[in-house]
């Protein structure tokens, strides 16, 4: 925080000096402004209104929630559905869990993308830009939650995943799933506020929740955070992902690239000069050419 504070002060002071007081808050983006969604699985009744709303809003598959019996199977999101609700039998009875892209603080997919087609936008949602994507699927291989999905059946495939209703947020609306939720199991807000609400609930009802907020620290923090009455392993969450932000796993390698590019050519040239003498074949080059002119097409 110290360094961030320092940078912030410097940037603000600098831009104030340069632009004459035209302070741009966007330049010093603070992760505290990220928005996200709090999912309280103890409140979810499994009505899947969010699935319907998501499908309708984004022109995707709209499930027939009354008749399809989809809760009986453990589904994952797909290129047709950005979010799914699954049912888990646990020690606390039936628990319903909504799963979708977690909108990580430091998104693995966004750092993996060679063309920045996956983008962590300034206020939190991770979105995809079709005009940049080359379809390498490195985002899929990198995402710790396996959320980006690829249209394998299309000649011009898209990456499909939750966008946190980016367009609706810009229009000042809540994400479609949150707006559709009848039980306030989903709460939209800044992540900091959501965390406060989550902690508040755990504090006030210590017996109703496990004392863990999934997404607070996992993979460096995610936009979606979850509350639960049972340990998260029982709800199909991976609890072995660690708290290190995933882009940091490639940090050392990416740092070393310019170092190799500085050092190795110089080292090789030095080695070559140190060895001295003519290049291999240098002396005999001209002898050979004299007797063997005109290329090797005649054999």
């Amino acid at each position, binding site marked *: 925080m110290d360094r961030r504070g320092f940078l912030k002060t410097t940037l603000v002071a600098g831009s104030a000096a340069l632009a004459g007081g035209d302070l741009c808050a966007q330049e010093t983006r603070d992760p505290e402004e990220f928005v996200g969604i709090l999912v309280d699985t103890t409140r979810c009744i499994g009505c899947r209104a969010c699935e319907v709303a998501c499908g309708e809003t984004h022109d995707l598959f709209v499930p027939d929630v009354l008749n399809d019996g989809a809760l009986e199977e453990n589904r994952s999101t797909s290129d047709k559905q950005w979010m799914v609700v699954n049912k888990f039998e646990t020690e606390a009875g039936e628990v319903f869990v909504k799963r979708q892209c977690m909108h990580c603080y430091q998104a693995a997919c966004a750092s993996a993308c060679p063309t920045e087609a996956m983008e962590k936008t300034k206020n939190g949602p991770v979105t995809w830009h079709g005009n940049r994507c080359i379809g390498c699927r490195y985002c899929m291989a990198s995402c710790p939650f396996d959320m980006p999905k690829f249209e394998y059946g299309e000649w011009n495939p898209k990456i499909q995943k939750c966008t946190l209703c980016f367009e609706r947020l810009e229009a000042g609306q809540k994400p479609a799933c949150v707006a559709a939720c009848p039980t306030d199991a989903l709460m939209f807000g800044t992540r900091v506020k959501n965390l406060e609400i989550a902690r508040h609930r755990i504090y006030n009802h210590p017996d109703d929740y496990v*004392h863990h907020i999934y997404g607070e620290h996992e993979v460096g923090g995610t936009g979606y955070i979850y509350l639960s009455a049972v*340990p998260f392993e029982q709800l199909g969450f991976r609890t072995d992902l660690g708290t290190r932000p995933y882009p940091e796993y490639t940090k050392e390698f990416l740092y070393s690239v310019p170092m190799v590019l500085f050092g190795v050519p110089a080292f090789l040239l030095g080695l070559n000069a140190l060895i001295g003498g003519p290049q291999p074949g240098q002396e005999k080059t001209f002898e050979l050419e004299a007797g063997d002119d005109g290329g090797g097409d005649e054999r």
Partner: protein
Amino acid sequence: MDSFTYVNIFETKGLEYLLLLCFWVLFVYLIRYLSPPSKNRKDWH
């Protein structure tokens, strides 16, 4: 769930240095094995 357990990430360092010693001993043997006896050297190059 979030209990603290003492984790020493360098627990195996001793073994690793032991491995290093093994490596050097074996490496010297490998190099000597790959270097032909000096009297035959002429035939080799």
